[in-house]
């Protein structure tokens, strides 16, 4: 029994040295039991066997800015395949002298995204800003009004990937919201139509939708009317993504307490007003994280247009590899492309996680 004198300040001792600092951390995190010690040693051994040879291949013996013949003489990686073919990989068949337009459109897109990710900019001005931005991007890519026209069939490479994902989301979002509202409707006809659509689309692979777009859509149209392949693929992506957004938004709508619906009704708001002013703003905010997840998936899924012979950045890379000069350097090409996708997707998913934390405390 040891009551301390209340006026004496408490003695704050330092913890035992094996508990804190580097030694403490190593002990607790790497060697805190026999099993873990063995695991650590195994992991270190595995790393030792793989990392140095990989490093040697990728950085020590590699060439970065040479031509194809020089690459064949070395044992290391031939990263030169990317810089030497960069124009084609990134811009595809877009006319070379107009590629600055493609480039500018991408820069514009990145700036818009960067602007939007800061929550301070989430205000009424955001919608018109995006609309203007999209219009300008469309003008830059397509032409008209002073710029020579470039048909959509020539849009390729990274801009195509970005456009397909971006317009995919932009088109799918309102459609998805409508579908979600329709699915929750009490009107049996509307509900059934929406349920059938959503379950049908979610049950089939994207590739079947892309096939549909490239093979079947032409059959649906009257003779003589021809819609561009890129546009058809874009429609397929929009229809596909909308079903997934619908499910996510439906989850958000379900999460809104019944009291909100009742309060809106008792204020005399009709259905459309209640949805637009009260329910949807809350529901959409709740589901921002999974919505970003769908955007990330849409971005990855644009790579599937390879299969219907559209020249996104994956296809342009493949075409580069089929060039006899650069054949055989698949690993380097694919790894670089993987890095590109990884940077984009990882940035988006960390943003989503950050956002989720920020919104969680706010809601």
């Amino acid at each position, binding site marked *: *029994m*040891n*009551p*301390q004198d*209340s*006026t004496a300040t*408490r*003695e*704050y*001792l*330092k*913890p*035992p040295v094996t*508990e*804190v600092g580097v030694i403490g951390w190593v002990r607790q995190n790497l060697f805190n039991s026999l099993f873990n010690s063995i695991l650590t040693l195994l992991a270190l051994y595995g790393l030792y066997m793989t990392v140095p040879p990989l490093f040697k291949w990728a950085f020590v013996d590699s060439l970065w800015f040479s031509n194809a013949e020089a690459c064949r003489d070395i044992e290391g990686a031939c990263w030169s395949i990317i810089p030497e073919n960069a124009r084609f990989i990134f811009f595809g068949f877009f006319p070379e002298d107009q590629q600055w337009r493609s480039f500018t459109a991408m820069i514009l897109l990145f700036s818009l995204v960067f602007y939007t990710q800061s929550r301070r900019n989430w205000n009424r001005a955001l919608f018109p800003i995006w609309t203007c931005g999209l219009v300008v991007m469309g003008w830059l890519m397509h032409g008209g009004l002073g710029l020579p026209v470039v048909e959509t069939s020539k849009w390729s490479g990274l801009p195509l990937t970005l456009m397909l994902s971006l317009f995919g989301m932009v088109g799918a979002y309102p459609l998805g919201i409508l579908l979600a509202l329709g699915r929750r409707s009490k009107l049996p006809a509307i509900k059934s139509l929406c349920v059938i659509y959503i379950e049908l689309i979610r049950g089939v692979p994207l590739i079947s939708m892309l096939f549909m777009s490239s093979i079947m859509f032409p059959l649906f149209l009257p003779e003589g009317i021809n819609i561009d392949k890129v546009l058809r693929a874009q429609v397929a992506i929009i229809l596909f993504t909308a079903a997934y957004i619908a499910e996510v938004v439906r989850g958000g709508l379900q999460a809104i307490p019944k009291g909100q619906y009742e309060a809106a009704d008792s204020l005399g708001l009709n259905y459309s007003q209640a949805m637009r002013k009260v329910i949807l703003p809350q529901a959409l905010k709740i589901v921002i994280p999974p919505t970003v997840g769908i955007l990330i998936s849409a971005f990855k899924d644009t790579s599937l247009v390879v299969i219907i012979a559209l020249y996104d950045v994956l296809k342009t890379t493949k075409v580069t590899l089929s060039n006899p000069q650069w054949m055989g350097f698949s690993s380097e090409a694919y790894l670089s492309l993987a890095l590109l996708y990884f940077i984009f997707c990882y940035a988006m998913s960390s943003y989503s996680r950050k956002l989720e934390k920020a919104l969680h405390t706010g809601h």
Partner: protein
Amino acid sequence: MTDKTIQHPPSTTGRPIIEVIGMHKWYGDFHVLADINLKVQEKERIVICGPSGSGKSTLIRCINRLEEHQRGQIIVDGIELTNDIKNIEKVRAEVGMVFQHFNLFPHLTIIENLALGPIWVRKTPKKKAEETAMMYLEKVKIAEQAKKYPGQLSGGQQQRVAIARSLCMSPRVMLFDEPTSALDPEMIKEVLDVMIDLAEEGMTMLVVSHEMGFAKRVADRVLFMDEGQIVEENNPHDFFDNPQHERTRLFLSQIL
């Protein structure tokens, strides 16, 4: 078990059932418990109170090794608590714990919750375990809920079940970590009544709580902790009527 002597004094002879000697604990660099010394005799009832962050929950969680101490000794029923897993398991079978948030297993019925320990730790046959469970459920006056699931019970009912669950292991010491803090006011009494019954039957109890009425009625000793140290200990009468230290007085004035 049904012997109802009131307020029998704890034995002052014999080995204490819990001994804490010179115990220190750190969370990283933060010195959360400093030089704790405590001896608990069998059948003794101790109430620990103090402001939040004082380390009182941490202290009792060290006694059943839910937390580790870095310096000093903790000896429960003659077994010292170290990294030796066998000792830890022995101690945990002897020491029961009741949590602030009940922590009943939601996927098992009430009776399965109670029988889990005896079946898998004491290797009791299922039938006997369930008989013992029913007996304890009757003791806490909740036998009719035996086949229900925790999600179907109120907070007070769940906490009573939690107490019965710990009792099924026939512990020699019961630890209570703020057992009524998460309950609605009208349910606090039913839980405290069960704890009073337990005390009257002679269970050794360490209770972290703000329920001063309970302390006055049942405790043999009241401890006040602040900033990781035991500041004052006394019998309830002297503790509440004549607190010795400034900090104790300040605390009591805030809660009474």
